[in-house]
C-alpha cells in the first residue's frame, strides 16, 4: 500500500536504529560506523533491551519524520531479560497496526533479530530497510516539521 508518490533518486532515507545491547557485539562502535554510511542516514540508539521501546516512541519517531525505524533485538528465547524481545515484537505489531490506521505504510517499522552483531552487520540491516522504503518515498511528515 503506497501512501505517497515516488520521490527523486536523491532521496536519502532517514533510518532510526534501535538496537539492544545483546544484539550488538561487545565494544562495537555503532556511532562511528553510522557516520560513515552515505547511501542513507543512520541514527543509532543503543538500549539495554528492546522492551524499553514504548509504542509511543515509535509513533513519535514517524511523526517527526523518520523514514523507517529498524529495531534490532535478541532472537526469541535468547533475551537477557527473558521476554523482553517478545514484548518488543508485540509492540511492533501494534505500532504497525496504528500506522495503518493513519494511512502510513507499516513497513516503516521493522524488527530484526541477531546476537552480538558487529556494527557493519547492524548497518547492513538498516541499509536493507532503507532500500525497502525508498519506493515509498520520503515520510510525508517531514514536510511540516514542528520546530
Amino acid at each position: 500500500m503506497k501512501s505517497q508518490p515516488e520521490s527523486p533518486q536523491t532521496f536519502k532515507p532517514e533510518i532510526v536504529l534501535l538496537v539492544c545491547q545483546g544484539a550488538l557485539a561487545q565494544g562495537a562502535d555503532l556511532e562511528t560506523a553510522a557516520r560513515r554510511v552515505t547511501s542513507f542516514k543512520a541514527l543509532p540508539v543503543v538500549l539495554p533491551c528492546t522492551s524499553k521501546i514504548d509504542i509511543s516512541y515509535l509513533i513519535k519517531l514517524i511523526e517527526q519524520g523518520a523514514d523507517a525505524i529498524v529495531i534490532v533485538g535478541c532472537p526469541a528465547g535468547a533475551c537477557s531479560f527473558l521476554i523482553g524481545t517478545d514484548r518488543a515484537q508485540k509492540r511492533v505489531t501494534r505500532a504497525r497496526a496504528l500506522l495503518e490506521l493513519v494511512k502510513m505504510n507499516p513497513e516503516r517499522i521493522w524488527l530484526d533479530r541477531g546476537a552480538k552483531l558487529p556494527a557493519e552487520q547492524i548497518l547492513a540491516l538498516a541499509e536493507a530497510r532503507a532500500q525497502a522504503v525508498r519506493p515509498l518515498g520520503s515520510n510525508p511528515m517531514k514536510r511540516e516539521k514542528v520546530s
Partner: protein
Amino acid sequence: MIIGEWKPIPELVEMLRGHKKILLVGCATCVAECAAGGEREVETLAPLLRIALETDGNPIEIQTQTLERQCEWEFVEALDAQVPTVDAVLSIACGIGVQALAERFAETPVYPGLNTTALAMREEAGLWTSRCAACGDCVLGVTFGLCPVARCAKSLFNGPCGGTRKDGKCEVDENTDCIWCKIYERAKARGAIDALLQIRKAKNWGNSRHGGPKRILREDLRP
C-alpha cells in the same frame, strides 16, 4: 474500573478537522488501567493524530496533559490557564471526565476521544471483561458471586437460556462464558443447587439508570 477504547481514527479526525491547536488530556486512573487514556496512550495518540490530520490536509498542534483523575475538580482546575489558549480539548478520559472538563471549560469545545463501554476488571494482562452493570439491586449474594446482569447477554435471572454453546460459551460471543453455566457449576460445587431452583421474581430496575439519572445526596457530607 471504567473501561473504554479509542474512537476510530476517522471519527477523531472528523471531530478535530478545522482546529489548529488542541489540548489532549488523559486520565491516570481507570482509563490508564485499561490502557486507553493514560499518559502512555496520550503520548501515542498525540503523534498519531498529528500524522492523521497532517496527511488529511489539516496540520494541527496537539498539546498534552495527563491528570491524576478527570472526575475531580481539584485536578481539573490545573488546566485553567492552558485551556483558554487552545481551540478545543480532546479528552481520553471516560464520559465522566469529558463532562467534568466540558462543565469547567464551558467556552471551549471538549470532545470525547474514547467510547466508554463498561464497568470491568482486568482478568489478566491485556484482557478486560465486564463485571458490573450498575443495576442498583445487587444479586451477587444469590448468584454465587457472578453477575448475571452484566455477564449474561440477556441479563437473565433464571438462566441459562437455550443459547449456551456446546463448549459452555455464550451464543452471542464464542469467547464469553455462559455465566449461568458458571453459576450452576459453583452452586453444584457447594452442594447448593437448591438455591437455583427458586424462581427469581421480576427485577426492580428503578434504582438504576432506568429510574432516571442517578443522584445521591448525603446531608451529613455537605459543606
